[in-house]
């Protein structure tokens, strides 16, 4: 193909312009908007963490049930539900423990459950 046209004669010129001070104004508009609505937490990461923690809890409970089933009846001193949960929790990694604590501290539903249980204990 005959190549008379030479790109270098035009370079990066374009037939477009912007108003004076446009880019400064653009930056301020963006900063104002992001300050008004800060970045959200990474939802996918949070879900992955929650699934991992849930799996860890399930694995610990399964392990507990297997151990409990295989223990002689007379030696089975762990009968209280709270102890079961505590044992399962203690088998989690520190990271998973921290995550669960963080999640449940923010969980309004759990707050309500705890309040109800405290109320029942007091009466």
């Amino acid at each position: 193909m005959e190549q008379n046209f030479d790109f270098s004669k035009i370079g990066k010129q374009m037939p477009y312009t912007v108003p004076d001070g446009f880019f400064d104004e653009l930056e301020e508009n963006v900063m104002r908007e992001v300050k008004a609505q800060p970045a959200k937490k990474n939802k996918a990461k949070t879900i992955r963490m929650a699934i991992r923690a849930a799996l860890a809890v399930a694995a610990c409970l399964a392990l507990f049930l297997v151990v409990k089933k295989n223990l002689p009846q007379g030696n089975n001193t762990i009968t209280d539900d709270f102890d079961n949960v505590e044992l399962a929790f203690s088998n989690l990694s520190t990271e998973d423990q921290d995550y669960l604590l963080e999640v449940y501290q923010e969980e309004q539903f759990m707050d309500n459950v705890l309040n109800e249980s405290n109320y029942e204990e007091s009466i």
Partner: protein
Amino acid sequence: MTDNKDIIQAIRENAEQGFRLLMAKYKEPIYWHIRRLVVSHDDAQDATQETFVRIFRSFEQYSGEGSFQAWIFRIATNEALRLLGRNQGKTMLSLEDNVTATLTMRADDYYDYSNVEVVKLQKAILALPAKQQLAFNLRYYDDLSYKEIAAVTDSTEATVKANYHFAKEKIIKYMNSNDI
């Protein structure tokens, strides 16, 4: 100009300060990239603003692997396609859609039609299919590597090279023609 690694580190340490560094480096290239696709200044302004808001909100989704610049241009390209789609009554245009914007002679403060060759080049680019247009713009104006362009357009380096080659051929043919 600040290095991308420094920008990423700065955002992790202080989101606002880091983001100002990012904007200092990318606000003009991103605006012009979008403007070349959507043509209208008002549309380019909207899409550029939305692009940076999205970058800020989804920064944690950048894995650290692959070009940060390509990640930014990909978000910008999607915003431009979203806006073009909205203008055509669709949710978003895809790169398979053959229509982008057209350069029309308008009495507008933000166009400069004084150089006929410059206007003609832009018309030639806008007449290209979307994938060729993107390959040409990102290579010619933004100096992105073929690998980065492939990441922006969700394609392969070989396809991008082919698109760039075809785009150049078509532009040269158009520029050598008597069409205005």
